């Protein structure tokens, strides 16, 4: 467990560093294409610094906002509070803030930067579908993410990936607006510049790279969180039956996007062919091990 925490903190540093690198490289690409010169590069440095800073301090707020989560009312969601309180006593964690998302698809995620600044969000669908022990299993899974500092890395990834995707999308659109002629008439011969071409390539690659980055960050941590969840509840059947219910349910979580997909307890996007056209594309960035695998592993405990 302590290795896991150390590894996550290390990954955070690597993530921030590579993020700054990607943003600066994108900035260089843009300034080469648009002929902005050193000011553009400087701007990219400032922007990446500011983004990295706000990512660390505010990414949980951003994540909750893009998922349309609202603070859970302690009297209305008494059971939710009671269960989390119990689990926190059992694991020695401070009480996280609780949020509810109005979405019929059952799902949940945890966010924040450390156990003292953490939040757990659950969908209304999860609250209605799960019974007491199942809900407890799911919440223990989320608390394990908090305890292992998974939330720090994956929440940072949300804002960073979101930012890179946003910037590169904007630039691509800007170029289309100019009708493909990026520079003005007087320096038309610039189009043959190999550096500009390289910059353009980078522009196309940036969103893909960014998504691959958080793909590397995720995946087997879900299985690990399942196991530590059982370590808290000491009751594997609860989480097993919760995962089975999630498997039986194929509703797509509409509050999730590709930027936040890796946070949720169950793959929130459409990945099966019958779920929509984007299924194949989503599978490419799949951040979750199959539920069958996770259930089988818990059965062995």
């Amino acid at each position, binding site marked *: 467990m302590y290795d896991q925490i150390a590894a996550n903190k290390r990954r955070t540093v690597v993530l921030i560093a590579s993020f700054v690198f990607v943003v600066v490289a994108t900035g260089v690409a843009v300034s080469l294409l648009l002929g902005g010169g050193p000011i553009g590069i400087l701007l990219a440095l400032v922007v990446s610094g500011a983004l990295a800073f706000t990512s660390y301090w505010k990414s949980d707020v951003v994540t909750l906002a893009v998922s349309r989560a609202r603070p859970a009312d302690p009297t209305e969601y008494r*059971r939710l509070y*009671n*269960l989390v*309180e*119990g*689990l926190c*006593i*059992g694991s*020695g964690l401070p009480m996280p803030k609780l949020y509810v998302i109005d979405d019929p698809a059952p799902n949940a995620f945890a966010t924040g930067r450390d156990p003292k600044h953490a939040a757990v969000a659950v969908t209304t669908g999860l609250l209605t579908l799960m019974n007491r022990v199942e809900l407890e299993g799911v919440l223990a899974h989320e608390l394990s993410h908090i305890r292992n500092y998974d939330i720090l890395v994956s929440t940072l990834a949300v804002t960073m990936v979101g930012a890179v995707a946003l910037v590169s999308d904007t630039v691509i659109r800007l170029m289309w607006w100019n009708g493909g002629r990026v520079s003005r008439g007087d320096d038309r011969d610039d189009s043959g510049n190999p550096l500009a071409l390289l910059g353009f390539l980078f522009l196309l690659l940036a969103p893909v790279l960014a998504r691959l980055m958080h793909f590397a960050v995720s995946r087997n941590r879900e299985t690990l969180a399942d196991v530590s969840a059982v370590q808290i509840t*000491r009751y594997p059947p609860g989480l097993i039956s919760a995962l089975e219910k999630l498997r039986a349910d194929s509703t797509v979580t509409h509050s999730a996007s590709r930027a936040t997909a890796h946070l949720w307890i169950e793959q929130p996007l459409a990945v099966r062919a019958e779920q929509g056209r984007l299924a194949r594309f989503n599978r490419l960035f799949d951040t979750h091990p199959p539920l069958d695998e996770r259930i089988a592993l818990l059965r062995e405990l």
Partner: protein
Amino acid sequence: MIVLIVVLVLVVLVVLYGIAAYNGLVKLRNRVENAWSQIDVQLKRRLDLIPNLVETVKGYAAHERQTLEAVVQARNAAMSAHGPAESGAAENVLSGALRQVFALSEAYPELKANQNFGQLQEELTATEGRVAYARQFYNDSVLSYNTKIQQFPAVLIANALKYGQREYFQAEEAARDVPRVQF
């Protein structure tokens, strides 16, 4: 001269280690204390909820006097119990009596539909869960504390300070038996 420096550095290192190990021990011991008082907090919370429950049930099932009196008696016994062993036994009796009350709701649909009763049931179930978690956390804390004070070289500091081993919380024999259901 060099020998002196080496000795000095070694002494400083040993002192620094001693301080760190001592602080670590204090932290673990306090965690054990805190975990133990957390159990009491949750048990007290449960006792506080019971008068409310009895009042609510009375309104719907007044002639189930026996069951209600058993709960009140068990509560009083639990409140006046001293020491972990005695209070552990009393709390177990109380848990059994409470189960009887909740079983009543099956015979009285109006009671079952009562919102207040539902909330009390949720609170009491949650508190029982919290008691169990508090005990689990206490045992986890005792485990890390006991392991620490037995390991070398922390054992030297622990012995010098007379830090003894702590006892684990153990479920009563009766509680360990799975209750038999009869049809």
